[in-house]
């Protein structure tokens, strides 16, 4: 229990999916790799489950369910973008478990993304998790490697 609580401190963002955490520079989309939208991490998922990376309020879920925004309890605006260009799927392959305005804890289920289906449709399933209000952040560190959803700390930050 003590070991896990190290990763649930308020200055850590946990993996929103299980898989491999990589730096945003490795995302083949300049909106993310050039840090235009902000900075953070990207997960190459190995499972369909997507959980809240941080405790906070669901601010928006795209109509096409390919992205969601969560405002953390400590004021971070975090965007999770499920796959690249997946807005074009118009919702196919995605299931949403939350509503706008709902408060969630880090690790709570938010969406399911059918990674096999999405890959077969020709889309990249790499999923960036980005802090978009970087002006609030003093320091940010990405932690890469194997990630377990809701448990592994993948972004360390200081406000």
């Amino acid at each position, binding site marked *: 229990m003590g070991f896990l609580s190290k990763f649930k401190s308020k200055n850590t963002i946990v993996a929103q999916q299980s898989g491999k955490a990589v730096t945003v520079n490795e995302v083949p*989309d300049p*909106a993310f790799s050039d840090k*235009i*939208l*902000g900075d953070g991490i990207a997960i190459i998922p190995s499972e369909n489950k997507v959980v809240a990376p941080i405790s906070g309020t669901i*601010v*928006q879920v*795209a*109509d*096409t369910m*390919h*992205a969601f*925004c969560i*405002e953390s309890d400590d004021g971070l*605006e975090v*965007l999770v*973008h499920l796959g690249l260009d997946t*807005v*074009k799927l118009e919702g196919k392959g995605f299931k949403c478990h939350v509503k706008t305005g709902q408060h969630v804890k880090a690790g709570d289920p938010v969406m399911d993304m059918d990674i096999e289906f999405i890959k077969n449709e020709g889309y990249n399933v790499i999923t960036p998790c980005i802090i*978009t*209000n970087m002006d609030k952040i003093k320091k940010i560190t990405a932690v890469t490697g194997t990630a377990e959803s809701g448990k592994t700390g993948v972004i360390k930050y200081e406000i």
Partner: protein
Amino acid sequence: MKKFDYIVKVSEGLHARPAGLLVKCAKDCSSDIKILNAGKSADAKRLFSVMSLGVKQNDKITLTAEGNNEDNDLEKLKLFCEKNI
């Protein structure tokens, strides 16, 4: 304050990537920039604010600029919209 109307052309609307580029352009402006759509207003310098408008293709948005450099800023935004969204 100056403003202009624009009809969004891109098929995906103002989702993450175009919204992010618009926010970047707005941040380069010294004026206060707002986007209005369907009666709602957003701060164009904040990504979440812009995304919460849920602007779709063929929606008409109004961009407003208020500040000392509002004419130049609005021109910059107009060029951006025509080129990117």
